């Protein structure tokens, strides 16, 4: 009850504060130019940046997390298991500003030399891999986000996989299944709905992550319209708001930034509701085919 009230309050506040910008030109925010002097506030690059950086992070994080979770529950000896779970828990508690510093000082130079330069050197003719390596980039943001969400997906997947009923595992083993076949045909199908929910939770986290992303993405509007390369600096809704809100004076500037916040909330909200819908749909049909 209190939560609902609180939520409506935030929602209302965002709506009211972004009203001036929306009323002036409801479609302007979807344009590609953001020019404070000229009073043009189009944030398409940030909107796309948010969606794309998070999607890439999910693309990286899902296989990594599942591999760790399967290794953890099915193959790892118990000493390794204890060590690994400490690492996973620790990773989940690292403040995002630390991820930002680490990304800036350690991951950025490493990625520049070992990922961006070799790839754009050999595959540079493909537009998304083209162009000079700046260091700060969309890809770097996605990689940092990956590190931030892997612990979420991994730890939930571990608890799901390890709660697979022993009777089902034994049924599969008694038919001559290998360990991997037990994972593939029993443990993963048993856990898939929960894993999907965990991925959506992680996506929500990635979409809304501010600090680390703002620090490493370069916060530039050149992506994706002047350069489509993933090695190019880019921006997200969060990085845009965080880097400009405190210095904005023009009321339309402020209002447009708040409108970006409103858009972000709408995006995370729809991801969340869609996930809920799918989960409830499938959990009803769980015992159907």
């Amino acid at each position, binding site marked *: 009850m209190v939560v609902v009230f609180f939520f409506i309050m935030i929602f209302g506040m965002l709506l009211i504060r972004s009203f001036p910008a929306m009323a002036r030109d409801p479609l302007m925010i979807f344009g590609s130019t953001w020019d404070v002097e000229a009073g043009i506030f189009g944030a398409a690059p940030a909107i796309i940046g948010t969606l794309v950086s998070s999607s890439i992070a999910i693309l990286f994080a899902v296989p990594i997390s599942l591999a760790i979770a399967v290794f953890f529950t099915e193959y790892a000896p118990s000493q390794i298991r204890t060590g690994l779970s400490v690492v996973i828990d620790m990773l989940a508690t690292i403040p995002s500003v630390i991820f930002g510093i680490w990304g800036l000082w350690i991951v950025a130079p490493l990625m520049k030399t070992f990922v961006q330069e070799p790839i754009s050197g050999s595959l540079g003719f493909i537009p998304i891999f083209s162009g000079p390596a700046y260091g700060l980039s969309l890809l770097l943001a996605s990689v940092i986000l990956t590190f931030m969400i892997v612990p979420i997906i991994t730890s939930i997947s571990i608890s799901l996989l390890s709660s697979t009923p022993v009777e089902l595992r034994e049924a599969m083993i008694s038919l*001559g299944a290998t360990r991997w076949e037990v994972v593939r045909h029993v443990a993963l199908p048993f856990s898939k709905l929960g894993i999907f929910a965990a991925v959506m939770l992680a996506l929500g986290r990635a979409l809304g992550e501010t600090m680390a992303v703002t620090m490493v993405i370069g916060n530039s509007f050149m992506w994706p319209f002047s350069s489509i390369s993933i090695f190019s600096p880019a921006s997200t809704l969060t990085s845009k708001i965080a880097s400009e809100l405190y210095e904005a004076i023009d009321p339309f500037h402020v209002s447009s930034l708040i409108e970006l916040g409103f858009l972000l909330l709408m995006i995370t909200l729809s991801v969340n509701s869609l996930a809920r819908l799918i989960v409830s749909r499938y959990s009803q049909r769980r*015992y159907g085919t």
Partner: protein
Amino acid sequence: MTTKLETKALSAWFGRKQVLKGISIAFEEREVTALVGPSGCGKSTFIRCLNRMHELNPGGRVDGKVLLDGADIYGMDPMEVRRKIGMVFQKPNPFPNMSISDNVVAGIKLSGEKKKADLEGIAERALKSVGLYEEVKDDLRRSGASLSGGQQQRLCIARALAMEPEVILMDEPTSALDPASTSKIEELIRKLKSEITVIIITHNVSQAARISDKTAFLYLGELIEYGNTKEFFESPKSPITERYITGRFG
């Protein structure tokens, strides 16, 4: 009579606790052997040594020999052993994410059989052999978990039979079922022995008397008595056996 499966001085442990103490027993081909004994005497552990499932428990250890047609299964690939020696569990355990027919062919698919028509044929035959086909044929795509408990257990038996095992191990397969389902499964077991060797654990002495050719009595991890079911019940040699079958036992 030829011996199908035989154990020699079979012992088993959970960690440091010894649960089976040197059991030597020979199971005849195409016979039903019942294993009886008080709770905790090691019956489940024993049959799980026969298809190499016991060693999967943390701390599970086995010593001695288990010979299938004279060859030690502990020298074979465990997956191969389990394809030849099937198992049915106490609690029906169909795969909830699979349809009825996918449940039946789950094991066959693992061993590489992929052609759809063949799989359908195998599923149909296995379901018929457990008398389930007529009851479910209208909707084979339904989940295995949507069946009644007795049907689920027959589905699990069909799943094991589809592998065409040489031996089938059953751990109290009817203890979770109603009397009607129980008698269906008992009838099925009597029919099965024309083709395969059946080893069945039961808590129910009258069930053992109804369905088995031979009966073995385990007590505290040791084999106390083993013989033809008729003699076993009419003239037990050991006083402990007699106390057990007359019900003066926990």
